[in-house]
């Protein structure tokens, strides 16, 4: 796993989580700039999946390859679902749904890094 990439992913998702809290508290509603940030994060998650597939194909093996791929693929679903769920109703608490989604991405990425640290090549 490209550690630098995953650290950037985790950092960006935490930054976006903080941003969504600010938006929820201010009650300003979800703007396009925030959605662009989420889109960028989703793009990085796709890159992360490709990197993971290439590395495993190259012979490196995390302790549980199935779990590793489940996380790599599962993490892609979190932001789209969270965003749809969040924009479906314009209210402060529903903006916090995005916070939950961003924190979930950060936690899942941390788990991926943990698994990769135990990988043998």
């Amino acid at each position, binding site marked *: 796993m490209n550690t630098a990439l995953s650290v950037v992913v985790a950092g960006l998702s935490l930054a976006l989580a903080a941003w969504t809290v600010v938006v929820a508290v201010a009650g300003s509603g979800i703007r396009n700039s925030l959605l662009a940030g989420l889109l960028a994060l989703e793009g990085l998650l796709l890159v992360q999946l490709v990197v993971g597939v290439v590395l495993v194909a190259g012979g490196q093996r995390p302790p549980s390859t199935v*779990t590793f791929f489940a996380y790599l693929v599962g993490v892609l679903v979190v932001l789209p679902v*969270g965003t749809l769920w969040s924009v479906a*109703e314009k*209210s402060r*608490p*529903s903006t*916090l*749904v995005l916070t*939950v989604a961003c924190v979930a991405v950060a*936690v899942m990425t941390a788990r991926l890094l943990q698994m990769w640290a135990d990988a043998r090549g």
Partner: protein
Amino acid sequence: MAEAPGSRATGGARLLVAVYALFAVAATSRAAVQIATKFDEAPLAYLLSALAAAVYVVATVAISRRTPAWHRVALAACTFELLGVLAVGTLSLFDAAAFPDATVWSVFGRGYLFVPLVLPVAGLVYLRRHPVPDHALREPGA
């Protein structure tokens, strides 16, 4: 704003249901992997994982419905969940041998930032503050 009958339309419920749904998916996936790949290592812990997953799924659905029957199911699920996390949390501290691999509820959900401990309390508080209105009782099909 009028609420759609049969569903909870407040943002707070949306947030609560979102967190429950996240835990339902996470717990179900984890239990499925544990039971499919290494059930013999810790059958008790993995069966509890599956039970926790089932409770999250039921709670997710029940909280998102706004009918008297679903309200009761939601109350039961959240109560069971709170008792479960307290019981498994305590057991995992005193009988670590039975829990060689962490479950969602081990050590009061430490592996999940203690969210499993907070979630049922948040659920019960929410359900108490948002009782199903009486007219819902008379709604056909409610």
